[in-house]
């Protein structure tokens, strides 16, 4: 079997493009996730810009309905699957091993495979643009609009198959992080000593593991309807389009908590650090997260109040949806409790965390308002829903993610962000976000339907829509400021040192950027806010400031070696899916490539040292 691994000699070295392609280092994979997802954020953001230009004036014919449909579909799909999820995955990769005191994740090569599947799945999803056949049935792609007779071109196939590949990536990553968190904590880190971000990562991973198979089956059935003559969602053959909605939302509602729980975890790390006090009500934060995770399975039909499920189902899902607001409220009060009486420092990261709380409350309240079935039947498919989702996902998730970027960024670049530009970025984003999305509450309540490419001048929607489009311009500049700040500070920023915020987490006890092996010596965890305890003990003992752990020779620490196989398997798997779109022979070749990859992977020891 040495021949197989011998064909592709074991990659080595830590520089150059190949070192990135073959890397299994969680920090590098995290950086790859981060940059790819940020590039997708810009693309999906520009798609939003196209929509806002179309909607800026009444009766506009700037892009027309066809392109508009593609824009809202790809904007939403990309923002959910290619931006917020992978940005969270980026944090999982960068932070989890550091914060639990591990040298890497449990399965470094599986981790690399997750990234490459994510990249190729993203490309497959967007490949429809090359043929002007981008998916155009909305991000939840309701049947039977998505069936062949109503969406004849290949757009929906790109959508379904792209999401299947992305789903494989997400599940692989989630399995990896579940095992890592359960099994790789440093000695002394009991479950109730884990940082809250790690808890939220664990809950999110479990949700992913259980929710993605449901949408996988839905996507397979949709693909079979479109390509193999079945009638799962087609009434002509007895199928029920509502089954698609059930499958989609049984996945889709846990999915929205998959999008929000990691940023909630980030905020729960940032607030204590800048309030100079431990997280308020830690056990309540943990258990409210678990309760949210469990209850997220019992609320899906609130997306379907207008489909005629009957009064019993509507009442039950109204009640469960209102109940899930309780653990969410617990979290918000605990965040406020954390800040209460603290010595608050309003660094950029803290501003984003506080902005998160404010905007998420607004989004949460509008969410409770459509928990009420009768009210929801008025709000369904209006801009009121668009306002809600952007307050929770932009004002919530994305603000939380930016809080994390400003908080943990210096750990990985080794340089401080410019605070002036950072604050400018925050205020532009905060104002722009509200100018864009707050008016949507009103146009929505006045009856403007979402997903319609234009509106008439008599409707009276013109003024508020122009305001939303103006807000988009502000947001555009907010991102320009962020990019300038990032480029400038990663080149000329002040040295960060290992612990710029005097923070409590384990990750701050090692140098910035961390060495490849993270911890020369696996730490013994002393308590919930480990590094604060260490620093306090040093102060009491009259020692000087605690220094970062000294670097040691990398060769003395046994680390997993780079590997070619993850990218090869990911390439093969993507062609299995791509072949269904083009020619089945390509699926077969893709399967062969993946099989060779799996055999090669299986025969390759996890680290090169034990090879010879």
């Amino acid at each position: 079997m040495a021949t197989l691994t011998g064909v592709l000699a074991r990659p080595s070295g830590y520089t150059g493009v190949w070192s990135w392609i073959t890397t299994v280092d969680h920090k590098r994979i995290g950086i790859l996730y981060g940059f790819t997802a940020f590039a997708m954020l810009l693309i999906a953001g520009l798609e939003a810009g196209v929509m806002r230009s179309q909607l800026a004036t009444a009766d506009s014919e700037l892009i027309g309905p066809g392109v508009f449909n593609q824009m809202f579909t790809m904007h939403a799909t990309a923002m959910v699957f290619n931006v917020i999820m992978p940005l969270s995955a980026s944090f999982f990769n960068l932070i989890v091993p550091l914060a639990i005191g591990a040298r890497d994740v449990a399965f470094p090569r599986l981790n690399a495979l997750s990234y490459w599947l994510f990249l190729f799945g993203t490309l497959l999803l967007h490949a429809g643009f090359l043929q002007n056949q981008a998916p155009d049935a909305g991000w939840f792609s309701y049947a039977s609009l998505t069936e062949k007779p109503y969406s004849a071109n290949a757009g929906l196939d790109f959508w379904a198959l792209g999401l299947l590949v992305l789903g494989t990536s997400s599940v692989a990553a989630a399995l990896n992080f579940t095992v890592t968190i359960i099994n790789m904590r440093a000695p002394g880190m009991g479950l109730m000593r884990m940082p809250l971000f790690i808890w939220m990562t664990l809950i999110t991973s479990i949700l992913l593991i259980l929710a993605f198979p449901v949408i996988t089956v839905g996507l397979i059935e949709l693909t079979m309807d479109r390509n193999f003559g079945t009638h799962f969602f087609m009434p002509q053959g007895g199928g029920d389009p509502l089954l698609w909605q059930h499958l989609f939302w049984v996945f889709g509602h846990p999915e929205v908590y998959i999008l929000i729980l990691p940023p909630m975890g980030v905020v729960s790390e940032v607030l204590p650090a800048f309030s100079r006090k431990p997280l308020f009500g830690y056990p309540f934060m943990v258990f409210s997260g678990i309760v949210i995770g469990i209850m997220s399975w019992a609320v899906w039909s609130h997306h379907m109040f207008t489909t005629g499920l009957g009064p019993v189902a509507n009442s039950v899902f109204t009640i469960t949806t209102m109940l899930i607001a309780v653990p969410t409220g617990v979290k918000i009060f605990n965040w406020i409790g954390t800040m209460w009486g603290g010595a608050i420092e309003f660094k950029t990261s803290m501003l984003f965390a506080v902005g998160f709380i404010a905007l998420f409350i607004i989004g949460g309240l509008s969410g409770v308002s459509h928990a009420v079935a009768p009210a929801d039947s008025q709000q369904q498919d209006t801009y009121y829903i668009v306002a809600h989702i952007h307050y929770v996902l932009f004002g919530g998730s994305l603000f939380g993610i930016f809080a994390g970027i400003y908080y943990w960024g210096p750990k990985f670049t080794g340089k401080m962000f410019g605070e002036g530009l950072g604050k400018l970025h925050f205020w532009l984003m905060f104002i722009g976000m509200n100018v864009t999305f707050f008016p949507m509450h009103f146009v929505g309540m006045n009856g403007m339907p979402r997903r319609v490419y234009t509106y008439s001048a008599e409707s009276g929607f013109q003024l508020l829509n122009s305001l939303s489009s103006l807000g988009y311009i502000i947001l555009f500049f907010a991102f320009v400021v962020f990019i300038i700040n990032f480029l400038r500070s990663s080149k000329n920023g002040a040295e960060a040192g290992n612990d710029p915020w005097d923070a409590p987490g384990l990750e701050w006890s090692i140098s910035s950027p961390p060495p490849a092996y993270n911890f020369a010596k696996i730490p013994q965890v002393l308590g919930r806010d480990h590094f604060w305890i260490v620093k306090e003990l040093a102060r009491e003992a009259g020692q000087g400031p605690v220094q970062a752990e000294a670097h040691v020779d990398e060769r003395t620490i046994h680390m997993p070696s780079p590997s070619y196989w993850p990218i090869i398997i990911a390439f093969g798997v993507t062609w299995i899916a791509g072949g269904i779109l083009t020619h089945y022979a390509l699926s077969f070749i893709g399967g062969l490539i993946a099989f060779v990859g799996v055999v090669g992977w299986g025969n390759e020891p996890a680290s090169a040292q034990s090879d010879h």
Partner: protein
Amino acid sequence: MAHAVEPAPHAEEEYTTTGLNHRKLLMWVFLGSDCMFFGTLIATYMVYRGQSLNGPYPIDIINVPVTTISTFVLLCSSFAMVQALAATNRDDQKAIRIWLLATAFLGAIFIGFQIVEFNAFKNEGLTLGVNLFGASFFTLTGFHGAHVTLGVIWLLGMAVLAFKGRVGPATALDVEILGLYWHFVDIVWIIIFTLLYLIGGFDTGPLPPSGG
């Protein structure tokens, strides 16, 4: 290719918080995920039970005695798998090879039955597109068959290693993880057999709408 010969150093010396091996934990968590996968496929079948607009209906198609035989074969393969693991633990090289091959062989017989069955159904007019019964039946049992096929390939790969003398107490964990997967696939078939054959196999025409 040292890792299968001697106790894999990265696996054996590794500190884990729970004391459970990473790969074993990974398999358990993955099986949780696979439960949801089959659960959704089974749910699709049950939702569409009796909803087909036209025949052939299960009563016209399903042959319970034949599938009972293949079910028995698959359950026997689980017994062989248990024996393979036991042989691995006591380092009985001959028994390891026999029981691994026996497991793969029984799995392959099950697949053979399924191929024959699918062909017979097709000849009787049951296709993916003909009605909801065909669509949900073939999708569910097809994905189960794919799982069994994957298991057979894995078993054969393990058998190749066994013939090279690379399977023994030091690599018992590899066999155990394979066994977890194999038993899971068997258990799923017990549920499928019960629902699709023993209960649903006698469905005639469209069922009247239920009271709920």
